[in-house]
């Protein structure tokens, strides 16, 4: 039996909770929207927001999902272009939590240890060669971030992988702050910061400066303080300390994650995402669960436990201990961006459940990155980022046949041939 069967046939019960007669939300369409309204007929819809829908229809208008439900219960308006994929699966586009392939290869500005002034959305190359293949692997959104060469590499952007001008594909910029807590950013030139004590000191000082700056502005804006001087270098800290965007932290190993929790979450009160989180970090899961901190694990997926000699799946260990927002990452190009699904497949091989793995490629990542109102599941009102596949994305024998981003078909094996 293939994995597809366990995932699909078990859930044949048709969920009725998707009110198929949902009042069509007339989205205020931009003046020149050349996207035709679409109706996609699908054999099985993995909504990532509840039970799958067998023999369903998805209506798309102005780039958003307009309606979704049983084919028998959705009336397709006559002007809608019908795309028949009734022998296929549909699911939300995959979301990459940690990627460096969204633009030019400028990852690290190495002179200063903290670089909050840097932003990488100036170097976005929409739909570049790597992203074209990523799309064929089902990845429609990536968190494009600076590298971990310094403790604070700069602010990254959340972007779609489809074509368009930078402002069309960027979902949010600043999207996240990138912090690296150990390993790569170690300094050997005599500065403070060759070890973890030093590095944490440096990061803390920088965050404190940023917090003070934002607090002054907050005070000014609610009328309780004078107008502070604008400091372009610290401006991007505003959404961070206002908890509108998270900090994604290159962090792994028990002690380092402990610092992440203590400094970034408890002390600085930031929205924190654990990226990598490998080696023995999973042993801190209780602390993470208590604080509801998401973990985007990988690309290293397993650990041979030194004491027991046992092979441990990193993701399944987190899962077993109860992390609720759990996903995987590729650190592309460390693992090719198009192989994101395979990070989840391997986690399943080590014991993760298939249902949770699907969520860990989609809605869980969206929640971690705080974009779950836009992407990550197929629900009315969300962006129409939809994959059509021959079966479960976790099974390497299946593949993506068509991808929609913002309601536009951007990859179609019938026209483009297979890219992956």
């Amino acid at each position: 039996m293939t994995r597809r069967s366990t995932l699909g046939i078990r859930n044949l019960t048709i969920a009725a909770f998707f009110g198929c007669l949902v009042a069509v939300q007339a989205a205020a369409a931009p003046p020149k929207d050349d996207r035709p309204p679409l109706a996609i007929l699908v054999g099985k819809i993995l909504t990532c927001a509840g039970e799958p829908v067998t023999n369903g229809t998805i209506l798309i208008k102005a780039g958003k999902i307009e309606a979704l439900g049983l084919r028998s219960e959705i009336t397709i308006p006559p002007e809608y272009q019908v795309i028949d994929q009734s022998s296929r699966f549909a699911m939300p586009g995959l979301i990459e939590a940690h990627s460096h392939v969204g633009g030019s290869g400028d990852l690290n500005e190495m002179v200063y240890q903290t670089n909050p002034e840097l932003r990488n959305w100036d170097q976005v190359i929409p739909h570049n060669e790597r992203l074209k293949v990523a799309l064929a692997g089902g990845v429609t959104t990536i968190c494009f971030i600076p590298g971990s060469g310094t403790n604070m590499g700069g602010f990254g952007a959340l972007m779609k992988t489809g074509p368009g001008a930078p402002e069309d594909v960027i979902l949010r910029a600043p999207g996240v702050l990138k912090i690296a807590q150990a390993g790569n950013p170690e300094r050997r030139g005599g500065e403070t910061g060759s070890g973890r004590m030093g590095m944490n000191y440096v990061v803390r000082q920088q965050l404190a400066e940023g917090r003070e700056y934002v607090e002054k502005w907050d005070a000014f804006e609610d009328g309780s303080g004078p107008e502070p001087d604008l400091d372009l270098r610290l401006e991007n800290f505003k959404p961070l300390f206002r908890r509108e965007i998270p900090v994604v932290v290159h962090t792994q190993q028990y002690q380092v994650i402990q610092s992440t929790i203590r400094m970034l979450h408890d002390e600085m009160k930031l929205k924190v995402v654990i990226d990598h989180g490998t080696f023995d970090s999973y042993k801190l899961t209780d602390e993470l669960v208590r604080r509801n901190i998401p973990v985007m694990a990988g690309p290293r997926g397993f650990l041979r436990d030194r004491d027991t000699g046992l092979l441990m799946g990193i993701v399944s260990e987190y899962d077993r201990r109860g992390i609720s927002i759990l996903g995987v990452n590729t650190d592309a190009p460390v693992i090719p961006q198009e192989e994101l699904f395979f990070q989840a497949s391997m986690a399943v091989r080590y014991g993760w459940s298939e249902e949770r793995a699907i969520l860990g490629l989609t809605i869980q990542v969206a929640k971690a990155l705080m974009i779950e109102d836009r992407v990550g599941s197929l629900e009315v009102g969300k962006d129409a980022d939809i994959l059509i596949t021959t079966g479960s994305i976790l099974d390497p024998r299946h593949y993506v046949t068509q991808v929609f981003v913002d309601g536009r078909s951007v990859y179609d094996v019938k026209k483009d041939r297979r890219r992956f």
Partner: protein
Amino acid sequence: MKLAFSIFWGALFAVLAFFWTDSSQARSILYKAAIVHTMTGNPLQPGEVFVQDGKIVAVGKSVVVPSDTKVVDLGDVTLLPGFIDAYSQVGLAGGSDESTREVTPGFSTANVIDWKDVNFREALAEGTTTLAASPGTQNVIAGISCVIKTAGTASMRMIQSDGALLLSLCSDPAQGNRSRSRPDSIYIRQPTNRMGVVWILRSAFDHASRNLPFESGAMIRESLQGKRPVFSVSRTTYDLNSLLALGEEFSFSPVAVGGHEAYKMAPRLSKAKVPVILGPLSTGGGQGPEETEPIWNQAGILSRAGVELALAGGNLLTQARFAHRFGLTRELALKAVTRQPAELLRVADRIGSLAPGLDADLVAFDGDPLEFTTAIRWVMVDGIIYEQQEEGGSNEENDL
């Protein structure tokens, strides 16, 4: 208004030039040619250009001149305005980059011109009579270019010492710097990567536009406000996108230089009204430091989208010829090396077209200027003929 201004200056220069020029040069000559491309309207066929004391006094199908005026009938020759290279590193003595700091807007190339540089001569021989000697791309804000003639007496050659402000919104300034190894080195500084380049520009513009203390802040501020053109060396799509973004953030109107991938976003540049100084074009190998694919018809693609376009970076004549072969119209190919660069450098009241009051900078071609096989008969700067070639394209050794 502009014309009146030009005529005024023309007259003034005519008077001054009377005292300056070598008395052995005939001061008034009427040149008759088969075709005259004035670049202000349709070509004149035939046409006449009346040159007096280094200036153009009259241009037309038939020009009325005093009876004692010397008349030179050039026969089959086609006359064009001298070519203008809006972005060139020719003539910069002792290197084109200042390597101790990243932001050097106050630095001016006007101070370091080697007037005897053989490259002036080479440019002149190919019809380029004016070029903008521009600082290199190792600095984020590199300095001010100057606009100079490729021939003439030193006092006459500098026509604009305060040319354009040059930015390097590209990866180049990050190339020489290192990090971490030796904290005492001057090479340890931002940028070591393109994010740093963008940040240094934003920081400089922010300081300058808010009057905060900053080296040459006033210079930057005035430039952003439009006192002089702002040229930015930007070749890739992301460099050009960043340029548009910075232009919006700090309210200035840039001109993109290099622009090797500009064709990929031609409508966007057109909409933003950002002109492109394209080049150097290439027919083989990668283009520029990024080695981008040398798409042959990038000039034609840009012009079709309505982007104002100049060709630059040396070999202007050959560039114009190939640009036309690959799809740029004849008119725009000629304009891209004459009037357009003059306008972008804001010296169109002196050079770039053939009209009364403008400098007598002319190129005489033995035939169709855009054919590969057509030779240049002579090149004139300020009314003086240089690079005279015999029939059939021979070339005499000729000391300037």
